[in-house]
């Protein structure tokens, strides 16, 4: 894992001191809310429905046991005993007091964490593959490149006031586990003729105008990665719309210019920048790579004992192939039946910290699906790990199944939401646990957003649900056919919406159509793509 050097630590400490002063002036009435709001947002402090909310960055979703333990301490000391892991691989606390905010940031700084650039029209926390550095199918560990971009984008003076927020994702596998093409910039590290380079996809995103990012450059040498990123941002910063926040994301610029013209302008800017000294020396990348060396993983050689049938089910659903023999990555579900997706108590966070230290070389990953990964677990340790997870309520064997629902906080917490997301997720999870169909359905990715901003990724769900406000009443639209994987696609609305009970029935109806129509080996998404919307609409509305 990356460790702060003196410059990183000094910058973060200085920001804590600066924000402490700003908070004190606000509390003393010397700053108005209009003056203070942009300052608190630069430090991840929102004002939500019930209280201040603090969003803490977890760079590319990677953290260690000590950091997780501090996240647990913050939940207990300053919040109400829990935190919420988000679809951006971050954590949010929902009950923060302004008078505690600077102390929390100081606690975070002690373990090399912060909340900088988790809000505002800047480059946000860079996301990545939650199996990075462990996956058998990657050409390289994408995290050193994500870290390089994190350092380049932190406090970048030119990109602190972009037209709108900006999200970058870096992966290094053909299999996309990070919704790469639904980011403002999606970067895939690839290998060509023995050399590593980067594919650039620019102009993707969800929200009210979902778009899949087009490929604008097939191969950028890695010693030009930062310069090419800077060129992409410069064109956006210059021409992105600032007159209408709903048209200010880069996806609108790329769409309106056309990918070809946007690319031409980026290439022109890139040529101009090449001799400007933007790119850090290669030695810096090598220094960063040094922090991401594989832990020493001797071949344990032993397969997990599958004689406990419940354990075997968990093994089948919640582990992922590792590049080293004798190891797997284990997925810890934060989706118990009827639970709140992504929520973890302080006690559970401490268990995760302990288990990471004991079984996974002190590493954890936060998934954009609101679960947690222990990336390097010996197969021989899996049974003990599963038992410990079960005891802590985190052993549900449902990764990528119906119960593994992504849900935004919705109207229960979020001031932007139009409808509640969490109760819908809870009811669907309970329904499919009770009717026994979850296992038969197999891979089925259900995603719920409480408003058009799409934090719950409903556009990319095999089944998506969007909560809307219909004359003061919650109403839910059903969408089918989305994917955020390497076969990225955007879901389509089935028709008129449903009330909060009707949407649960509608999801079951759609699932039943799939069970009736599927052919051997087809996932829900495959069947939908083969038979189209009509049979689903007929079942839902006739």
């Amino acid at each position: 894992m990356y460790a702060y050097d003196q410059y990183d630590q000094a910058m973060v400490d200085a920001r804590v001191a600066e924000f402490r002063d700003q908070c004190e002036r606000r509390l003393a009435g010397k700053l108005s809310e209009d003056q203070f709001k942009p300052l608190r947002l630069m430090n991840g402090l929102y004002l939500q429905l019930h209280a201040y909310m603090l969003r803490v960055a977890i760079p590319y979703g990677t953290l260690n046991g000590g950091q997780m333990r501090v996240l647990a301490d913050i939940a207990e000391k300053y919040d109400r005993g829990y935190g919420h892991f988000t679809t951006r691989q971050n954590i949010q606390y929902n009950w923060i007091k302004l008078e505690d905010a600077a102390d929390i940031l100081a606690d975070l700084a002690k373990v090399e964490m912060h909340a900088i650039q988790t809000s505002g029209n800047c480059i946000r926390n860079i996301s990545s593959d939650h199996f990075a550095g462990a996956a058998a199918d990657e050409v390289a560990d994408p995290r050193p490149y994500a870290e390089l971009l994190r350092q380049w984008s932190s406090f970048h003076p030119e990109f602190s006031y972009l037209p709108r927020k900006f999200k970058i994702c870096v992966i290094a596998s053909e299999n996309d586990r990070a919704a790469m093409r639904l980011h403002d910039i999606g970067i895939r590290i690839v290998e060509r003729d023995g050399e590593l380079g980067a594919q650039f996809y620019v102009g993707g995103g969800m929200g009210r105008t979902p778009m899949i990012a087009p490929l604008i450059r097939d191969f950028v040498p890695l010693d030009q990665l930062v310069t090419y990123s800077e060129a992409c941002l410069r064109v956006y910063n210059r021409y992105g719309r600032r007159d209408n926040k709903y048209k200010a994301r880069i996806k609108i610029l790329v769409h309106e210019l056309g990918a070809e013209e946007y690319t031409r302008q980026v290439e022109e800017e890139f040529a101009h920048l090449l001799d400007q000294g933007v790119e850090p020396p290669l030695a810096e990348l090598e220094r960063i790579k040094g922090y991401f060396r594989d832990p020493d993983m001797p071949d344990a050689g032993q397969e997990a004992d599958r004689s406990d049938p419940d354990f075997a089910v968990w093994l089948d659903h919640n582990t992922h192939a590792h590049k080293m023999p004798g190891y797997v990555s284990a997925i810890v579900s934060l989706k118990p039946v009827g639970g709140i997706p992504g929520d973890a108590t302080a006690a559970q966070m401490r268990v995760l910290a302990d288990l990471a230290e004991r079984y996974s070389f002190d590493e954890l990953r936060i998934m954009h699906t609101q679960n947690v990964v222990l990336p390097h677990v010996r197969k021989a340790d899996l049974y003990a790990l599963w038992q410990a997870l079960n005891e802590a309520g985190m052993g549900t064997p449902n990764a990528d199944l119906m119960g593994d629902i992504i849900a935004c906080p919705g109207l229960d917490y979020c001031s932007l939401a139009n409808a509640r997301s969490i109760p819908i997720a809870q009811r669907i999870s309970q329904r499919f646990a009770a009717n026994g169909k979850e296992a038969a359905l197999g891979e089925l990715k259900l995603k719920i957003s409480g408003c058009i901003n799409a934090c719950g990724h409903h556009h990319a769900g095999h089944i998506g649900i969007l909560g809307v406000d219909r004359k003061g009443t919650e109403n839910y639209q059903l969408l089918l056919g989305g994917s955020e994987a390497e076969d990225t696609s955007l879901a389509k609305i089935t028709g008129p919406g449903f009330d909060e009970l009707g949407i649960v029935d509608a999801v079951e109806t759609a699932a039943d159509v799939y069970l009736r129509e599927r052919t051997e080996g087809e996932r829900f998404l495959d069947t939908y793509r083969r038979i189209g919307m009509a049979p689903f609409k007929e079942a839902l509305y006739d």
Partner: protein
Amino acid sequence: MKLITGNDLKTGAVTWWTGDGWSIHIEDAADAGDEAEAIATREEAARRVNVPYVIEAEAGPDGAPRPAHIKERVRALGPTVRVDLTLKPDDPTAAQKVI
């Protein structure tokens, strides 16, 4: 009726104008009537409450003010999915009353 609401500066807690101060309990909220906007402006200037604003409400079945919009009813109670975190942790029906 017109209520004035905002979030407490220090704690961020949802708060309601009572006629001579602020309370976290909507049961204490006063109908600010035609003076509502003026009071909200005055209170914002005092910088005790974040961005106070005026909402529509009516008297509920128990006589307490009931906001017209569900978002304000959720604000008045707390998250409907965690009754233990609301202002009525001992009332298992509290969330249903919001809907």
